[in-house]
């Protein structure tokens, strides 16, 4: 037989191993997050200094993008395309592939004790479909007319009539991304249902697995209607149909010609938001899962209210499918249907609060280890709290009508995603980095990254809440200047944007730049530590209880060296024995080959005991 060792291409590029694919997803999505960050920096610059050439990168912009970036200035059209693509890239190419593609792919098979995902080849296909979709999105910047400019929500009739080819690329790329998501979610669900090791009952699953399981169902069932909607919009653009084009459409003062009419822009909104709302729960549920893992590990005690957490995740999953039209309160829907959605939206806040409460109560009485992941996890709690609380006025129709499409909304959802999900992602990266690479990330750089990001994110998004309440609308390429009190045509007008509100644009722009700067230590830390970081002292450096830590470091192909059996609940910290899958009797540990390491590690922990709770759980061998 020839050597079984696959070549570099087979091992690292076209791999079917879920760990390699997870890392591929992580690196690709982090790169896209960086692109989104750069787009955001340029946008904020433009808003603070409308009509000024962008410093440093202005020349490059002009040579890359041509006329829309003439003289290094960001034209209105270019600003709109940056805005649309910032949203699209961050959500569909950045956060979702990271929290679902990367974290779920790497950790779910490990945490259920499986050797790999249920369908490894399908997994590889998912990644490459994602990559192709991402490339199409990036390429769309360079096609005639530029990238999509009708917002990440791509509302018709604008999205249909706008002459930019980028819109077609956007729609095609979305079909690739949706297919990738569908295949990935099928993989995760089948893995969790079918490949759990003996002893791993449903209520013994780590909450992270539950959160990814529910997320997978949301992706599976909510994406297809948007795919249908995207196909219809493609038909409108390419085949001249009128799915979304109503009768009597007037374009630039002239009646639209060549259209049959008879369609409805509302149809797109329903189909889009049917996905759009579950999508935001896709963004937050895995984050809550990650935070749960980190908090359990760093408080050295079981999570408070495991059953409540699971029940709430399931409730969120179900309810998220029936709240979508709270994004459509201003479309002229009648009071009956608005009332329905208002009710369901308010109800869905309850399971979210339950989850946050369980996590906060988990801190009580814990022996808290303020490691870098724990800092991010703890910060997640109040930050997501602000995001969630600012969402409450948006659930009610009467207040939403005033706040819709204002900067308040932008502040609200960024609080949830940026110091919310992204902080959870950072926590997860710092936490699982030692298992994936066998090395620790540098702690000092981690703390620097944490504090800088926390302060800057609040400086960016908190003012936005005030801007929105002050009347500033979103998607305005001049930063609201045309509606401001300073604008000559608004002399003596009531309700124009005050100077205070306009000046916040400057604060936000500088904070955005600082935020980008504070990511540099993280980027450096990430790559440097992967090759030259301090090596881990054991397979389980955080002394965690879940299954993914019971493997060699990094886990080999096939993950576990032998059959696993689970005896306990997932966060069995500070009980008799610490690991979820540790064999209960010390005598049999000799037959359990690779646990020898763990036993030795336990003894060395006892020897270096600073943590009293841990000392109690080491059994005299």
């Amino acid at each position, binding site marked *: 037989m020839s050597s079984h060792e696959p070549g570099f291409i087979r091992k690292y590029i076209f791999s079917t191993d879920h760990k390699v694919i997870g890392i591929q997803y992580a690196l690709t999505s982090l790169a896209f997050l960086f692109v989104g960050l750069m787009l955001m920096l340029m946008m904020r610059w433009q808003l603070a200094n409308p009509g000024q050439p962008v410093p440093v990168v202005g020349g490059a912009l002009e040579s890359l993008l041509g006329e829309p970036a003439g003289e290094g200035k960001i034209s209105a059209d270019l600003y709109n395309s940056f805005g649309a693509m910032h949203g699209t890239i961050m959500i569909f190419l950045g956060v979702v592939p990271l929290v679902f593609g990367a974290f779920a792919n790497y950790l779910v098979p490990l945490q259920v004790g499986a050797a790999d995902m*249920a369908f490894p080849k399908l997994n590889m296909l998912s990644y490459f479909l994602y990559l192709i979709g991402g490339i199409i999105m990036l390429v769309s910047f360079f096609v005639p007319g530029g990238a999509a400019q009708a917002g990440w929500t791509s509302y018709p009739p604008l999205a249909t009539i706008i002459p930019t080819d980028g819109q077609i690329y956007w729609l095609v790329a979305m079909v690739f991304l949706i297919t990738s998501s569908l295949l990935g979610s099928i993989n995760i*669900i089948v893995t969790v249902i*079918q490949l759990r090791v003996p002893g791993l009952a449903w209520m013994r699953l780590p909450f992270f697995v539950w959160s990814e399981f529910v997320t997978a169902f949301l992706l599976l069932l909510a994406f297809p209607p948007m795919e249908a909607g995207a196909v219809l919009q493609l038909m409108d653009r390419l085949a*001249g149909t009128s799915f979304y084009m109503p009768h009597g459409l007037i374009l630039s003062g002239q009646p639209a010609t060549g259209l049959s009419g008879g369609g409805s822009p509302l149809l797109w909104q329903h189909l889009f938001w049917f996905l759009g709302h579950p999508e935001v729960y896709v963004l937050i549920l895995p984050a809550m899962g990650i935070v749960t893992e980190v908090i359990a590990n760093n408080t050295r005690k079981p999570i408070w209210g495991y059953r409540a957490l699971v029940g709430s995740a399931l409730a969120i999953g179900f309810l998220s499918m029936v709240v979508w039209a709270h994004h459509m309160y201003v479309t002229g829907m009648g009071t009956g249907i608005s009332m329905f959605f208002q009710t369901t939206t308010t109800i869905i806040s309850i399971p979210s609060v339950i989850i946050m409460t369980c996590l906060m109560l988990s801190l009580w009485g814990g022996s808290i280890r303020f490691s870098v992941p724990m800092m991010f996890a703890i910060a997640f709690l109040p930050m997501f709290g602000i995001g969630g609380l600012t969402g409450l006025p948006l659930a009610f129709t009467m207040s939403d009508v005033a706040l819709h499409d204002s900067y308040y909304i932008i502040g609200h959802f960024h609080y949830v995603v940026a110091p919310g999900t992204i902080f959870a992602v950072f926590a997860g990266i710092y936490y699982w980095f030692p298992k994936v690479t066998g090395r620790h990330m540098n702690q000092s750089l981690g703390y620097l990254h944490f504090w800088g990001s926390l302060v800057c994110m609040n400086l960016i998004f908190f003012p936005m809440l005030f801007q929105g309440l002050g009347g500033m609308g979103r998607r305005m390429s001049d930063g609201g200047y045309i509606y401001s009190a300073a604008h000559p045509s608004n002399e003596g007008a009531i309700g124009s944007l005050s100077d205070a509100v306009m000046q916040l644009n400057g604060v936000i722009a500088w904070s955005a730049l600082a935020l980008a700067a504070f990511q540099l230590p993280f980027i450096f830390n990430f790559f440097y530590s992967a090759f030259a970081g301090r090596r881990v002292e054991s397979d389980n450096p955080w002394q965690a209880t879940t299954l993914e830590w019971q493997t060699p470091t990094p886990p080999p192909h096939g993950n576990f060296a032998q059959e696993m059996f689970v005896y306990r609940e997932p966060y069995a910290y500070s009980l008799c024995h610490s690991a979820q899958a540790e064999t209960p009797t010390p005598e049999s540990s000799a037959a359990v080959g690779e646990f020898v390491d763990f036993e030795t590690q336990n003894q060395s922990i006892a020897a270096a005991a600073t943590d009293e709770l841990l000392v109690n759980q080491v059994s005299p061998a």
Partner: protein
Amino acid sequence: MKIPYTTEIREDTGLYNAKVGMWLFLASEAMLFGALFSAYVFLRIGAWEGEWPHGLLNIPIGAFNTLVLITSSLTVAMSWTSLKMGDLQRYRRFQFVTLICAAAFLGIKGWEYFDKFSHYEIWLNDPLTSKEYPQLAGHSADGDQPVSSVIGHIEGIGPFQTLASLQESGASAVEIHPDAFHYRLSARQQAERRKAERSLGAEGAREAAEEHASVRIDVSRIARMSAFVPRHGTFFATYFTLTGLHALHVLGGALMFAFILWPGARMWRDDPERYTNSVEVTGLFWHFVDLVWIFLFPVIYLL
């Protein structure tokens, strides 16, 4: 490295991996077609009076296609049981019939599409009265009402023509053979008119013959001209999208079966259980496609 439950079933679920995966995929497909059906209902309810065509689709052909697809579903199920019984020959024969049915379905669909592409509607600047043009009697609810659009086949031009292409070609007029009834008439109105005609006897027969004679329309009187293509209106947009997507699924399923039947047949020698399972799982997809058509046919063709 072995992944468990690829062929043997897991006790607590009673399923093997691929089956769970396929059912999940079918759930997502159900949402996809469900969304398209919702769009169909949404657009139909929101359509203006007289703008939603009725009776333009060929029902016998559609019914025949339904029976073709149902037959293929049967042969797929029979082929799976043949495999379970170890009979490769019968499996092959049944699958061959399945593929024939799939090809027939797609072929008939293609013919339907092509027929639509050469079937025109002309909207007029100023209406024609059916008094001047008795051939247009079936275009108005009561014999005298003026008619602002004419549907039928046009002599001498190919498919996909529009007013713009007509003007470009320099034609001054078109000869259109009007259909017996305009879609603006409801099914009830059409039935009533047919009854009235039959009671006219020989005269009625002559009138019917005249109806198929052509009407000459000057290009200058035409406000808009379109074949029954997606851009004609929301009905055809929905029709083509829904049936087109369905046809793509039929094609995909057929290709999967063909792959399993020929290149993939090696697995029967190495791992017959897994081979049988792959047929079962693809069969699930095929039955789902049949299911979609079972709803599509009445909703689009009949309602």
